């Protein structure tokens, strides 16, 4: 059952930290989540936990519901018409469905599939989030911009053109700008919806590297179509199929020793 997978380099959990991670309250927990697009039952009884300061990857074939599930974690699905969410999603133990949605979205950030910077300068893109959330007081905007761009591994490339339009950047740079923008409000969780699917391999590698560096300040959930990517960056991986969470475990285990047949079939490429 062992499959040839590249050795994940980010996994270095000692038995101690594993135990600690398992007993601490998970940063986020989804319980009995059901989701409907109109009459279509898109997610069935999903139960999933996200450990603090770890990277969790969600994988599965097209249309399996992984993106839909991700978009419920910051309640952005509510902006679509005729949708319904049942169940509970907790952040630090509190149900996010009962909390103020703008506060939720400040604490749980999102990076989208295609880069979507605002038609503003690089500087203004980054200061937008802190500005509306009132976080610019007490620290200079320039410092915040530099800090965010450094975390997103973009500072060196744009430090001389902060006031130029964001659209002047390449696709990969724009996506890192979106990551910097999301980080600028200091989120506790960062959701990434197939962030590299529109990018070339070099840009992809840069983003994967930076994800590893930011996870100690932030819990990361990343939806990806690319199993190798999950193997490279994720501590744990969840496999979705037809709206159900089939299996969730340490990435190692999922790829080398999956317990469900469906998982194994997907991993070995029996279906896409």
């Amino acid at each position: 059952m062992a499959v040839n997978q590249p050795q994940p380099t980010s996994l270095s959990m000692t038995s101690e930290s594993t135990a600690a991670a398992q007993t601490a309250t998970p940063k986020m927990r989804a319980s009995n989540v059901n989701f409907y697009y109109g009459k279509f039952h898109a997610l069935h009884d999903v139960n999933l936990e996200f450990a603090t300061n770890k990277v969790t990857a969600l994988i599965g074939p097209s249309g399996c519901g992984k993106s839909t599930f991700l978009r419920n974690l910051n309640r952005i699905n509510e902006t679509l018409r005729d949708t319904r969410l049942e169940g509970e999603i907790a952040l630090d133990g509190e149900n996010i469905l009962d909390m103020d949605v703008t506060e939720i979205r400040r604490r749980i950030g999102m990076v989208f599939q295609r880069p979507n910077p605002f038609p503003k300068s690089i500087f203004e893109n980054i200061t937008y989030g802190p500005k509306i959330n009132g976080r610019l007081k007490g620290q200079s905007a320039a410092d915040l911009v530099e800090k965010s761009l450094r975390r997103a591994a973009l500072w060196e490339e744009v430090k001389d053109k902060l006031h130029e339009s964001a659209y002047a950047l390449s696709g990969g740079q724009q996506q890192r700008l979106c990551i910097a923008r999301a980080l600028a409000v200091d989120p506790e969780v960062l959701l990434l919806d197939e962030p590299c699917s529109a990018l070339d391999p070099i840009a992809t590698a840069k983003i994967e590297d930076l994800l590893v560096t930011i996870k100690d300040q932030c819990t990361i959930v990343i939806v990806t179509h690319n199993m190798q990517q999950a193997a490279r960056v994720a501590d744990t991986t969840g496999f979705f199929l037809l709206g159900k969470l089939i299996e969730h475990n340490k990435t190692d285990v999922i790829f080398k020793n999956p317990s469900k047949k469906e998982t194994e079939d997907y991993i070995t490429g029996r279906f896409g």
Partner: protein
Amino acid sequence: MSLRNARRNTINNVMLTLCGLCAFLTVSTLFLILGYLVYNGGKSVNWAFFTRLPLPPGQDGGGLANAIAGSAMIVGMAAAIGLPVGFLAGVYLAEFGGKTISFWIRYTADLLNGIPSIVIGILAWGLIVVSMHRFSAIAGSIALSLMLIPITARSTEHFLLEVPRAMREGALALGATRWRTLATVIVPAARKGIMTGMILGVARISGETAPLLFTALNNQFWSNGPMDQTASLPVMIYTLALSPYDDWHRQAWAAGLVLLGLVLLATITARMIVSRGASLPR
């Protein structure tokens, strides 16, 4: 929820409610207009309105039959001139035009659409009234047709372009010439939209007053034909509304109701036929 977020949420709710208010205010204006017109016009519309000539102030029982007939004649002639010209121009733009020349004609047509109708009236005056040395219905018709041509051209072009390329190529592949394809396949396919555009255009010009003010002028009696001054509904409404007499005001309301009724009827019918056809002239 923090105080700041509470404030932001309040602002959010207030601003979004205001926006909704704006929308409903605008729509209710339409209903107010219609309501007021129906109320005041309905009181004064009667059989005499459609059959009798205007009477001097103080005498009851007059009508605007001459204005109704006059409008029909003026608009009819304008349509007879403007629709074919506009249609053929639109055909050129859609089917034959090269890139630059089409662009400039299109741009000019849109500019023409934006020129105030009174300036078009001046043009028609200069061309027809001056050379004929008289005010006449035909001058008014030509003024209106000058407005109709660019409207019709753009809307015809729009609907011809909407016909799928596959249909066009199907006919050409069978050996049909371009004009034959046009006449037998493309134009019939687009005919609903083209007719809609024409109806909307005619509805629009039938409500126009300014171009008629010094071309067809006005007439208290029946017009003696296209070469004579002719009364029209819009000009009558203008004259009667500005007069100091109450019964003439009543006639104005009645005329307004009839005119608006016809224009709205034509517009709604046309729009229902094609959901997003030749909308506002841009």
